[in-house]
């Protein structure tokens, strides 16, 4: 993580030097524009959530409250999202669970997903990730300005810094996902429920992917949402996470048992 601010600093410095003839305005303009776009998207790009009231699902509300207490966190806001694909995420001190989760997971597994999101809150990711998102856009804009307005050497250097930033950012994201899983395992009464939840979500993704690849395009276009395929993965695979969880739960005994 420490390298990321260094890279951003280097990119800003490079842009400042490469564009020094134009004065400070290009840099200020880029930073300000990115900040404005980011703030606008943050404030207006949100989806429709419904806040969960305790009386609606006491098992979920109380389960999250208990885990939040265990993690020394205030009770987070719990929101439900009208989305049939199972998904969950967190922001500030809030957890969002899609209604699709409730169709494919049992109660323990849903609590495990909530525990993972609590892990992100506990580990400070809900504060760090927005900064990372901003820095990513800033890096991209600065690189574009340097490539367009400065010479090829400065442009190549800016591109190099951007690529390095993306690689490190992806690695950081993956580490935070593993860390959130580790925190969740400590919060859960039944840690293995996180493994079960990930297995079911992996099955869901695989089945969806299988249907997409086996479907005749003209007959089956609708079920699949358009998905962007990232050049650099910021999330570890389900298999990687499941393996880490098994190691966390069973430690080295897992391998010893297998040998026996």
């Amino acid at each position, binding site marked *: 993580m420490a390298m990321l601010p260094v890279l951003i600093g280097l990119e800003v410095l490079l842009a400042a030097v490469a564009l020094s003839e134009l004065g400070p305005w290009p840099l200020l303009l880029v930073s300000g524009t990115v900040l404005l776009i980011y703030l606008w998207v943050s404030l207006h790009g949100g989806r429709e959530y*419904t806040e*969960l009231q305790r009386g*609606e*699902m006491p098992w*979920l509300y109380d389960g999250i409250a208990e885990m939040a207490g265990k993690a020394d966190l205030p009770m987070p806001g719990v929101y*439900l999202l*009208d989305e*049939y694909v199972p998904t969950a995420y967190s922001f500030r001190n809030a957890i969002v669970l899609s*209604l*699709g989760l*409730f*169709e*494919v*997971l049992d109660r323990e597994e849903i609590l495990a997903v909530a525990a993972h999101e609590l892990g992100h809150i506990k580990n400070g990711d809900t504060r760090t990730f927005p900064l990372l998102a901003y820095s990513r856009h800033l890096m991209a804009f600065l690189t574009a300005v340097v490539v367009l307005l400065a010479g090829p050497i400065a442009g190549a250097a800016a591109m190099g810094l951007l690529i390095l930033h993306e690689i490190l950012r992806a690695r950081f994201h993956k580490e935070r996902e593993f860390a959130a899983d580790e925190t969740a395992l400590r919060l859960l009464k039944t840690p293995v429920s996180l493994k079960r939840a990930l297995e*079911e979500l992996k*099955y*869901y993704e695989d*089945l*969806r992917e299988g*249907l997409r690849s086996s479907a005749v395009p*003209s*007959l*089956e276009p*609708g*079920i699949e949402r358009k998905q962007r395929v990232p050049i650099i993965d910021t999330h570890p695979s389900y298999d990687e996470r499941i393996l880490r969880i098994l190691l966390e739960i069973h430690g080295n005994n897992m391998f010893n048992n297998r040998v026996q």
Partner: protein
Amino acid sequence: MRMEPHEFKLTEEGIKAVLPPLEAEIMEEMWRRKVATAGQIYEVLRIRHPELRRSTVSILMNRLCERGLLRRSVDKGRGGMRYVYSITTTREEFEEKVVKSILDALMSNFREATYAYLSKMKK
């Protein structure tokens, strides 16, 4: 929304001729119930298919929504928010659409032969 079938399997019986087997079973159950959650359908189907998973039922029911045979809505009743699925058409209406689509296709591709066969059937 598209409800018309796009393929017809001559070797399958009933609505399995126009829908994949599990989707056909889901529709049979949905026509019986009219409104149900994916969980309720899962509980019924897993008696016949012990290996069935909730994810499969959820994906297929949403696929049936895409096909226009089911409608998904959010229910805010007892037990909190959840998805409920309802039928958009009766079984009879669906079968009528199947027959119409197939006959339309036959008439546009094999007009004379279809006429001849239908008039022979009438006699």
